[in-house]
């Protein structure tokens, strides 16, 4: 059995914003999120852009802005993951593959910024490791002395991936690694993630691209209005979607152009609409009274997790 790396339990992230005048608004971006990642496993967090899923990455790394409020608990290999531990682990055992090439320093040579700050003695050894990892990702020696503007999009992507791997991390967080790339580069990026998982690294893939998630992830956590409403296995997204449980997950599966392109009416609640009941209530075809009274908890069903009062009925296909 592979070791559990990260365990996130009931995390909520909210922001305090100033409205008109001195009125403060609280914005719940992530609510009651529970998730775990083991070694060699790829877990995708799937949500529409702007849904705040990147903040999960920032929460794990301890780089949330000061007006953000984080509650709930996180454990890393059994140890409570507090701010001190986060600062110790980030860039070392936990690495981030950032969203875009804009995260590179335009004025530093590639190899210098990949190695980062170190003493003269360490430099040679680090340089050798950097060269080795870069080689593995098809980056030739010339790249070391280049500046970011000299890289093509695909090369830059490989630089970000291999830089994240320099510290030999156990957990990699990939924040939207695919948008703006063509099919070939997407495939390449996803292959890199697979390669990491095969080397026993745990990968948290944050994405809005369901095709990318389905192709590479083992588990997919589906975000809806700040709530994870289902954590399903990628292999459940098959056939007529009969293995999927939550009605939104089913709608999502059937809406794919390669499936039925089926229309589902309605929209997600806005971030600042404080919900007192099931976030999917207004769109659900089978709501009950209880669905309008409380927010359902994320419960375990078999090897999956579902946030639905009627999960068991949905599961047995009663509807």
């Amino acid at each position, binding site marked *: 059995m592979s070791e559990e790396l990260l365990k996130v339990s009931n995390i909520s992230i909210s922001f305090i914003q100033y409205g008109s005048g001195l009125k403060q608004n609280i914005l719940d971006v992530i609510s009651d999120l529970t998730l775990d990642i083991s070694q060699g496993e790829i877990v995708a967090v799937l949500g529409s852009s702007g849904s705040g899923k990147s903040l999960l990455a920032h929460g794990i790394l301890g780089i949330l802005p000061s007006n953000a409020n984080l509650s709930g608990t996180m454990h890393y290999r059994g140890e409570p993951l507090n701010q001190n531990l986060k600062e110790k682990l980030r860039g070392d055992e936990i690495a981030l593959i950032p969203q875009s090439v804009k995260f590179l320093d335009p004025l530093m040579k590639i190899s210098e910024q990949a190695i980062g700050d170190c003493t003269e003695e360490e430099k040679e050894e680090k340089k050798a490791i950097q060269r080795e990892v870069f080689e593995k990702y098809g980056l030739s020696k010339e790249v070391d002395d280049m500046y970011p503007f000299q890289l093509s999009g695909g090369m830059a992507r490989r630089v970000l991936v291999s830089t994240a791997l320099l510290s030999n991390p156990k957990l990699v967080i990939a924040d939207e690694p695919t948008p703006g790339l063509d099919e070939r580069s997407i495939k390449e990026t996803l292959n890199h993630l697979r390669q990491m998982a095969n080397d026993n690294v745990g990968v948290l893939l944050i994405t809005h691209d369901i095709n990318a998630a389905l192709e590479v992830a083992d588990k997919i956590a589906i975000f809806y209005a700040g709530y994870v409403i289902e954590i399903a296995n990628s292999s459940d997204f098959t056939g007529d979607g009969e293995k999927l449980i939550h009605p939104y997950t089913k709608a999502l599966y059937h809406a*794919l152009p390669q499936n039925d392109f089926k229309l589902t009416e309605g929209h997600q609640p*806005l971030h600042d609409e404080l919900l007192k009941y099931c976030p999917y209530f207004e769109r659900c075809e089978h709501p009950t009274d209880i669905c309008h009274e409380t927010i359902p908890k994320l419960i375990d069903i078999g090897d999956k997790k579902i946030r639905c009062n009627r999960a068991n009925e949905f599961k047995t296909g009663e509807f």
Partner: protein
Amino acid sequence: MILKGENISFKYPSSDNYLIKDLNISLKSSEIKGLVGDSGSGKSTLCKILAGFKKSEGEVIIDGVKKTKKNIFNPVQLIFQHPELTMNPKWKMKDVLKESWDVDHDLIKEFGIQESWLNRWPNELSGGELQRFAVLRALSPKTKFLICDEITTMLDAVTQVQIWELVTKIAKERNIGLLVVSHDKDLVKRICDDVIYLEEINNN
């Protein structure tokens, strides 16, 4: 009506190579045509040329007439991938929506735009909600052609279906010609009558 791009060529001033060379493309009223290409292949550049936002060699002709007049409503409207970048952050959504035409009430409802969203600022709505506004804003009765440049790429699959149902329905009702630009071949196959590949019509 027919929108034609004839012998379109484009290169960046800093480059020696043409991004687009001697390209010909046409779009008829009520036709839904897909355009597929890799990123960086010049899809968005071509969109901007056809909509008259970018100068190029060659000619863009609408119904046999070369577009020359400025400051009149452009019958070729362009919708972008990122709606949030096309909206004034200091305008409320109701002002954003009515920027180009006096949108009627029924249509707002049909688009699933909630009354309460109209008093919101752009940064308070998600990409899917903003894109509904962007599409509706572009659908003035004077719009004859609509160029959709990856308009649902950043959206979830459910919202993607909603947006395309609306766009194709209205395009059919009003005989609007639609150019659907996307890298998603399944999507293009799903909604278009005809698909063209940029690399096949580009002679660079």
